[in-house]
């Protein structure tokens, strides 16, 4: 009984402000005749119409697929490259200016080059997302590989661990916290790249939906698109957080113990 009560208060503490804000939006926008701020009630009505399920399947799903595949490709490429560069310091040092340059490239400045090479279809969108997510993860992976504790390296050498076992049980797990930190940055950049590529690329997807609604002055539809985008961005981040919590459970325990010892 008291436990449920505690859970309820905990949830209430986190939710009261968001709920209040949405309520305020509802109340303030009710009866609004402003072009830009249509009543929230109207938006929610249209939301149900539009997104269950026609545009969910036509626009939201393709967007998510592009995001997941682009981010996935970027992640895989970055980790493999990062393991190589992290293990060969001379190569890493030589290529550092190039990598820094790639990371500094704002995704929007990439669009002309990508569109020139790959057109405006899915390829361009997915590869742009992959490209954007690669560099922050790559740099962090290198950092992570370098930060492997020298004592553990000696353990690996002393117990004659083979190359594969060293990578699988030592280097990759040790670099994982850093890899995830990079991936979190990369994820939000991927979402931006997804929206950008869809705005300039071939029709379809959430970015296109929002921009197209605006062009046709269907502001209510545009608002529903924004809400969907917000939900997807939030869901992506939460999913990522869950995966991170699972993979890095050891890390939290480990650092906590270290802090306690201090």
């Amino acid at each position, binding site marked *: 009984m008291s436990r449920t009560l505690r859970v309820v208060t905990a949830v209430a503490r986190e*939710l009261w*402000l968001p709920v209040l804000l949405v309520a305020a939006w509802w109340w303030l926008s009710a009866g609004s005749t402003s072009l830009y701020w249509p009543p929230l009630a109207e938006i929610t009505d249209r939301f149900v119409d539009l997104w269950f399920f026609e545009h969910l399947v036509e626009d939201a799903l393709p967007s998510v697929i592009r995001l997941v595949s682009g981010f996935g490709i970027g992640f895989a490429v970055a980790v493999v490259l990062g393991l190589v560069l992290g293990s060969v310091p001379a190569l890493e040092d*030589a290529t550092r200016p190039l990598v820094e340059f790639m*990371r*500094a490239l*704002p995704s929007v*400045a990439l669009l002309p080059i990508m569109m020139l*090479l790959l057109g405006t279809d899915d390829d361009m969108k997915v590869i742009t997302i992959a490209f954007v997510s690669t560099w922050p993860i790559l*740099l962090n992976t290198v950092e992570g590989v370098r930060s492997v504790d020298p004592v553990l390296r000696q353990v690996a050498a002393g117990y004659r661990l083979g190359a594969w076992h060293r990578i699988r049980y030592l280097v990759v797990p040790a670099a994982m916290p850093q890899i995830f930190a990079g991936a979190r940055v990369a994820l939000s950049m991927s979402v931006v790249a997804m929206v950008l590529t869809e705005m300039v690329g071939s029709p379809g997807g959430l970015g296109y939906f929002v921009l197209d609604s605006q062009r046709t002055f269907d502001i209510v539809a545009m608002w529903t698109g924004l809400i969907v985008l917000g939900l997807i961005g939030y869901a992506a*981040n939460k999913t990522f957080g869950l995966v991170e919590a699972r993979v890095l459970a050891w890390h939290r325990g480990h650092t906590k113990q270290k802090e306690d010892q201090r």
Partner: protein
Amino acid sequence: MTRTPLRTAPPGVRRLVNRLLALLVAFVVWHLFARGPGSSSGFPTPLESMESAVDLAGTSVYWSNIATSVETALLGLGLAVLIGLPIGLLIGADERARRSTQLILDFGRTVPAIALLPLFLLMFGATRSLGLVLIVVSAVWPVIIQASYAVGEISPQLRRVGQAYHLTRWHRLRYLIAPSMLPFVFVGLRIAATISLLMAISSEFLGGSDGLGYLLLQAMQINDTHRAFVYSFTAALLGLVLNLVFVLLQRRVLWWHPSVRKGGAS
């Protein structure tokens, strides 16, 4: 071969040579690509790009548009910090405030603010305000979040030291509180700066009337790939310079912090 003198050279020289070699390799690959598979789409070679870069560097249009983009980015960043920092500090100072805003902050930082561009375009048209609003809406989150972390990072032990030695309020702020928080605030600033540049150029590209993003769009529309390349590179260089400025600032301000002392700040 010629490896022997290189091996005996001081490490700094060797490093430079290695980096130049890597750049050279990249240029050769680029050149071969532009000549081969890329030639049909008008992909410029490195030399051609350099030529157009030299041409453009002689025009005032190029420089004034860069200045516009940089100004927008910096102005936006300044606004984001002015708004975000106090909010972040307030939130961080109070556990209840932290909990109540958790969801909003989580939401704010992941929602792609770029998607709001169409709305802002309607409201503000192709003006600088468009870019500024977009920057503030997207860059304010990392500032708020990092500032709120920063408050939690002031160690209770240092607080007690301050009390035990009866430091004045100003001295506590100057010598204990500010230095403890600065590393975290800095992280937020760096993220916000990167976002600001991206959003400045994006807003020009998607709905502006001047700036680097606008030049980029124009070049693309008239299919001037050579210029488009130069603009893309310029954008990346701006990003690099911005990053460099932050690294240098960090070294000056946070020279005592482990991340700087190790020489690993990048």
